[in-house]
């Protein structure tokens, strides 16, 4: 009998115009959504459960984020997670990748799952690093960007693309794996599941509840100090053609290419 934890993040909606705050960090205000890459991690957990590849009792979604981030958990649960955990605490504000990974690892320890799944990247942070930090704090093996997973007993055979081509790696459970978006096609939640999501257990924790060392999180506890932001050197804006009349559009493209002697 096994348990899978899926780490999910709430990120600004793709349509929101994003900006950087005075502190050099992303301003995360505005409409938010579940990190789209994390739906692949949830789907991977469900497929392991449904295929019987692993005897999964429970899929638990966990997030670290400000109040409001439970919306991402509702989405995760509507997609099929059984319950969820939200760590929210003012002391967490300004946590860097290592601090966030530390807090997530502490939450994972409370659940002692057999497998932890993550998305390939957060749409806002884009560090592709949280999984490796969580694995390190747990002392478990970890791999990122996995696009194929086969489980045999407590051995996972994973495939992923690295810098020299595709690698096949065997990992002993418990392990921490981030999955690439090519691993599956996430399902859409049913209306019933969306309506029922709020009824599934959602546990809210503070860092004290979770036994997290306050000195290792938040802006103070973070060792990567983000400073001010600056503008990169200005680059000439490109030409944009909105295709309304394809014949005309193509004429414009050809003229543009011809001017630059590219044909």
């Amino acid at each position, binding site marked *: 009998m096994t348990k899978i934890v899926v780490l999910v993040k709430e990120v600004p909606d793709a349509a929101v115009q994003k900006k950087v705050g005075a502190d050099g960090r992303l301003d995360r205000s505005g409409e938010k959504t579940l990190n789209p890459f994390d739906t692949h991690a949830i789907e991977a957990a469900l497929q392991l459960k449904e295929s019987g590849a692993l005897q999964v009792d429970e899929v638990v979604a966990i997030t670290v984020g400000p109040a409001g981030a439970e919306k991402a958990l509702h989405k995760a649960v509507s997609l099929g997670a059984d319950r969820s955990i939200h760590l929210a605490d003012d002391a967490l504000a300004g946590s860097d990748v290592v601090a966030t990974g530390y807090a997530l690892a502490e939450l994972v320890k409370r659940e002692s799952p057999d497998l932890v799944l993550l998305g390939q990247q957060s749409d806002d942070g884009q560090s592709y690093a949280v999984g490796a930090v969580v694995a390190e704090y747990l002392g478990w093996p*970890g791999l*990122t960007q996995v696009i194929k997973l086969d489980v045999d007993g407590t051995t996972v055979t994973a495939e992923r693309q690295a810098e020299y*081509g595709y690698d096949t790696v065997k990992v002993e459970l418990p392990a921490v794996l981030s999955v690439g978006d090519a691993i599956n096609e996430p399902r859409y939640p049913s209306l019933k599941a969306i309506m029922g999501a709020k009824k599934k257990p959602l546990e809210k924790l503070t860092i004290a509840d979770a036994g997290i060392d306050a000195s290792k999180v938040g802006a103070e506890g973070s060792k990567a100090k983000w400073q001010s932001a600056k503008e990169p050197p200005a680059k000439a804006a490109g030409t944009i053609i909105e295709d309304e009349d394809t014949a005309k559009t193509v004429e414009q493209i050809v003229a543009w290419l011809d001017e630059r002697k590219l044909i």
Partner: protein
Amino acid sequence: MSNILVYALHHEGAINKNSLGAISTASKLAGELGGEAHVVLVGEDISDDVAGSVGTYGAAKALRVNAPAGVAQPVVDALAKVAGDGDYAYAIFGGGLLGFEAGAGLAARLGGGIAVEITDVRVDGGQLVAERPVLGDSQISEIKFDGFGVVVARLNAFEPVQSGSAVAVEDVSVDLSDASGKVTVVTRGEQRGADVNIEDAQVLITGGRGLGKPENFSLAEDLAGAFGGSAGVAATRAAVDAGWFPYAGQIGQTGKTVAPKLYVGLGVSGAIQHKVGMQSSDAIVAINKDANAPIFEFADLGVVGDLHAITPALTEAIKAKKG
């Protein structure tokens, strides 16, 4: 505390170009900090020649650790051991997938901080300051470290510079962690699909997930055919992972770096990990139906529309133009 550790990724007897760039950069920065750049190589078959050659890029030491290559955990074990035995304030990785994984693991183990996708590093007040482009590269944030700092470069950000001569290789023995014993590389660097060459093409038509299905790569092939000569077809990771196109034809972070005279993206969103492999193209044209796609931020000519309607017509028009 002013030496800098560098991890040198290698495969089949060659050190990764991005690692060489990291060595050169670290050696310059360490000089400004009054220290040295020391390079760690992890693998079971690294020759003296290969390891010692890091000296020719500015490294003062080559430290060889005999442990499995291709996964992050042994690299973390090796770097943490070396860092613990000496005076090191920073570690620099040349990017690549292992760089992110090992860099993050090392930062966590040493209780330090990590900065990824770094395009530049300078010394300021005796400390490193790393530049991180954010928001589709429209802003650059600066990151400093309080404690051990791990810098992971963006692909191609650090140029290898030859300086100095080969150094003697020191073997370092490292006790591997439990986690390292639980990861085994079965096969490494498998080349899926045909051995296509995209690096010599002057015109590259790149197909992304927006093509919809593998058969639609014919739209890209036909357009390349219309350009004739040295025009070729390439792909994004999404298309390659889906099995639509050979890995050898992939552009980006874990694929090839190209700089053709003309790059045309068909249904390519322009993710950072793709952009880093093609941003040096002379002219970038994108056809994408989503006006908010990141590729429009750096395309010289952006066409907002359906590639299925536009591409065949464009192919015909170019053929007609060429006569």
